[in-house]
């Protein structure tokens, strides 16, 4: 991988205008982190479109490098495999996001509409367009097939009520990347009491997503 990427790496680094310039290896690590977090999180996470764009650039560089390599060279097949693997992770990441957008479409749109000016966006502009189209498409369909034939006061469906919200109390496995102190764990049942835990770096836990949700977005824990 380092052979094909060392050419691509220098190109990518020169094109970077942001402050934190990543090596290709760091970029792929970031993609994998985002992929795993998105896969195991019950709700849609912040969008990482910069990572997606950089990875796609990376893939085109690698592909271009591969075209220049002599056919039948043993290295070529290894590089090809690497490209396939990265493309799989990227596609899987985008699919996870799309599935959650479709599953929770009214809530996702509501969250995006009501977020503050400075808050990071949940959806990329393309995902936002997709979500809006999905909503409109589904509403049109339901109206055309059923709702318009119903009594006048029943001709709408409140999507926010009709479509279930993500279950934030589902349990997730996580690995701690940065030590956290005094994490408040809410009681699940009435006879339990809330308690406080410290999360040691490198330790792995099974906890309710709601408790550690902010730590996922800050990068302090990694879902596994």
């Amino acid at each position: 991988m380092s052979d094909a990427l060392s050419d691509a790496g220098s190109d990518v680094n020169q094109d970077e205008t942001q402050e934190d310039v990543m090596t290709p290896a760091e970029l792929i690590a970031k993609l994998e982190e985002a992929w795993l977090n998105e896969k195991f999180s019950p709700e849609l996470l912040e969008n990482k479109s910069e990572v997606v764009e950089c990875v796609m650039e990376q893939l085109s560089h690698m592909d271009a490098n591969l075209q220049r390599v002599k056919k039948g060279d043993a290295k070529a097949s290894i590089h090809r495999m690497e490209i396939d693997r990265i493309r799989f992770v990227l596609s899987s990441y985008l699919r996870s996001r799309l599935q959650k957008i479709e599953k929770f479409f009214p809530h996702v749109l509501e969250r995006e509409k009501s977020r503050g000016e400075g808050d990071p966006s949940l959806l990329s502009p393309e995902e936002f367009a997709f979500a809006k189209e999905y909503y409109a498409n589904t509403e049109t369909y339901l109206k055309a097939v059923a709702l318009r034939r119903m009594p006048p006061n029943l001709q709408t469906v409140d999507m926010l009520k009709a479509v279930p919200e993500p279950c934030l109390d589902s349990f997730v496995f996580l690995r701690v990347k940065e030590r956290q102190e005094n994490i408040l764990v809410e009681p699940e049942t009435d006879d339990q009491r809330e308690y406080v835990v410290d999360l040691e770096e490198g330790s792995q836990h099974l906890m309710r997503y709601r408790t550690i949700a902010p730590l996922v977005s800050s990068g302090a824990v990694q879902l596994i």
Partner: protein
Amino acid sequence: SKNSELIPSIKLRHCCLLRNQRCLTAYLYDRLLRIRALRWEYGSVLPANVRFHMCAEEVQWFSQYKKSLASFMRSLGGGEGLDITQDMKPPKSLYIEVRCLKDHGEFEIDDGTVILLKKNSQHFLPRWKCEQLIRQGVLEHVMS
């Protein structure tokens, strides 16, 4: 006072109507989810026998869905585009042995060579090129 006697009945009737509305929309929405799954399973052209079971509005929904999906995929990576309906499984090997289940005509692979996909012929082809054809039932992955 005659009217206020009717209120519980009205409320009951309204609850029943709401429940019926919920059941109907749940049924219709479940169908949509299955139709959505077809796009990911079969690709953008549905087999005739499946389309036969869909009403006109469902066909319309499907056509709109695949259009939305296509423009989303085209826009990925700053306009470069990425077909995320491919690469559904982690890549295990570079080339796979496939058998052709029906005549599919000529098929070009990356280095320019053209393969004739004739029924029952077997080929050793790059995995990523075959994925869609395997899902459509044109090729069959031969695992010996």
